[in-house]
């Protein structure tokens, strides 16, 4: 349970590439910091890797953390400055997440917003976790923990290219889906729905939404 946890005692520092035992120990609400290589993925990455069956342009054994982020970057001489890193909605890519985890051996996906049952199920089977940033869109906080390492497929445009970042204590990241099938978004929504139903009822209006 994440609300009311003793935050100080749940900080966990991990090295990338992540091993299966690293992610198996994580629980919902743990706060994770990553050191090592992480890579960015938008839909063009998934299309090339999954739909078109291409090989990734980097070694996924060394870099098994996938980050849903179109980076905000600035060209400086022959390198790039990473100005701000704000993740984008993971739901848009949910269809591809299971096959990508399977093909590349990904152990952690970083992104924004919820992922559903089928991804929690895939993560349980394949040994991976879903992490979201504390502070959500805090773009500078997160860019300050990485350095540019490489970029591939830049012809797709900056947001859609595949960027490799060298991260140091990249976080705080909140474990929102663990490797045992638990989903913090689902748990939070179940509680919220109960509350919201009551509010609608008191206002005399019909509740016809479904949060999970």
């Amino acid at each position, binding site marked *: 349970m*994440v*609300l*009311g*946890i*003793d*935050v100080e005692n749940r900080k966990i520092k991990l090295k990338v590439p992540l091993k299966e035992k690293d992610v198996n120990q994580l629980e919902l*609400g743990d706060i994770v910091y990553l050191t090592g290589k992480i890579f960015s993925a938008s839909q063009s990455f998934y299309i090339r890797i999954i739909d078109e069956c291409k090989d990734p342009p980097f070694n996924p054994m060394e870099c098994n953390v996938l980050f849903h*982020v*179109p*980076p*905000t*970057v*600035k060209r400086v001489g022959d390198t790039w400055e990473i*100005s*701000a*890193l*704000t993740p*984008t*909605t993971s*739901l848009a890519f949910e269809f591809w997440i299971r096959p990508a985890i399977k093909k590349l051996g990904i152990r952690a996906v970083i992104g*924004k*917003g*919820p992922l559903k049952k089928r991804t929690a199920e895939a993560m349980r089977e394949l040994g991976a976790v879903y992490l*979201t*940033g*504390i*502070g*959500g*869109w*805090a*773009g*500078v*906080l*997160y*860019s*300050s923990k990485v350095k540019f390492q490489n970029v591939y497929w830049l012809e797709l*445009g*900056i*947001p*859609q290219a595949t960027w490799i970042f060298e991260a140091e204590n990249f976080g*705080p990241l*909140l474990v929102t889906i663990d490797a045992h099938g638990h989903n*913090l*978004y689902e748990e*939070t*929504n179940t*509680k*919220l729905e109960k*509350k*919201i139903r009551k*509010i*609608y009822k008191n*206002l*005399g*209006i*019909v509740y016809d*939404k479904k*949060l999970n």
Partner: protein
Amino acid sequence: MIKQDLIKKTAVEALKRAAVVLPKDIKKAIKDAYLREATEIAKLHFKALLENSGMAERKGLPVCGDTGFALFYIKFGDDVHVQGGLSSVEPILKEATRIATKEIPLREKAVHPITRENPGTNVGVGIPQVTYRMTDGDFLDLIVVLKGGGAEKGLYYMKFHPFTKEYIKTIKKSVLDAVIDGNIGGLACPPNIIGVGIGGTFDLCTKLAREAAVLRVIGERHREDIVANLESELVEIINSMGIGFMGMGGSTSILDVHIEIAYCSSFQVPIAVNAQCAAARRAVARIFNDGAVEWRENPEWF
């Protein structure tokens, strides 16, 4: 006369201020939320945001990586004189967007809607969008809003018949449903500023919703009491839902609700909902004929 160069310089500076420095009312709202939140996770989120906005200002970098779409709102004073005429302003704003995209930088977001080609400039057919209004005075107001992509979720437009006395309930349901669609799971980056348009035609109604979301400061109430009361009531209801920062639970689910209205048919109530994300970025500059530039907090659009 206002020189074209001054408009360009001011527009680039406005884009930079908007991207990097959160407006005072937004910073205060985030700080208040940090102090008010009871759970540790909610507190940590808001603490991270405060730390982030401090770092952004020190480093001169965008406070959020999604620098959104630049929306320009321009108010021309009756007595303003612009070098090259009023029609020269729009090309200058496009040029300023191009420069700002490289210099700040802004996320290279805008692509052709069919070919998906990205010019890398955030300039293309129809964008950046510019909206004009006239006023009295010897100045030009240049307002920049950066509208994040997250807060384009949970959009809502509907028309219904006000044939029972309960139509106010339908208005409330429309707003609450839109808040749920956009904010559960944090899709629209809550806490949002919710903008509601009531009345008008389709285009006017949706325009009012967006302008209500992005062009009023936190805590500013509508000029008509009956609308202002509905705003306050909705703020209280939505916060009591407990959606919290990024949908992770907490007592701050929205920053404010702003409603704008227009008269409409006696047979219909059109209603639209739009939102601005928690990084509610805007900058307001007033450029006078004599070349003086005054930076302001409140867009005073309505």
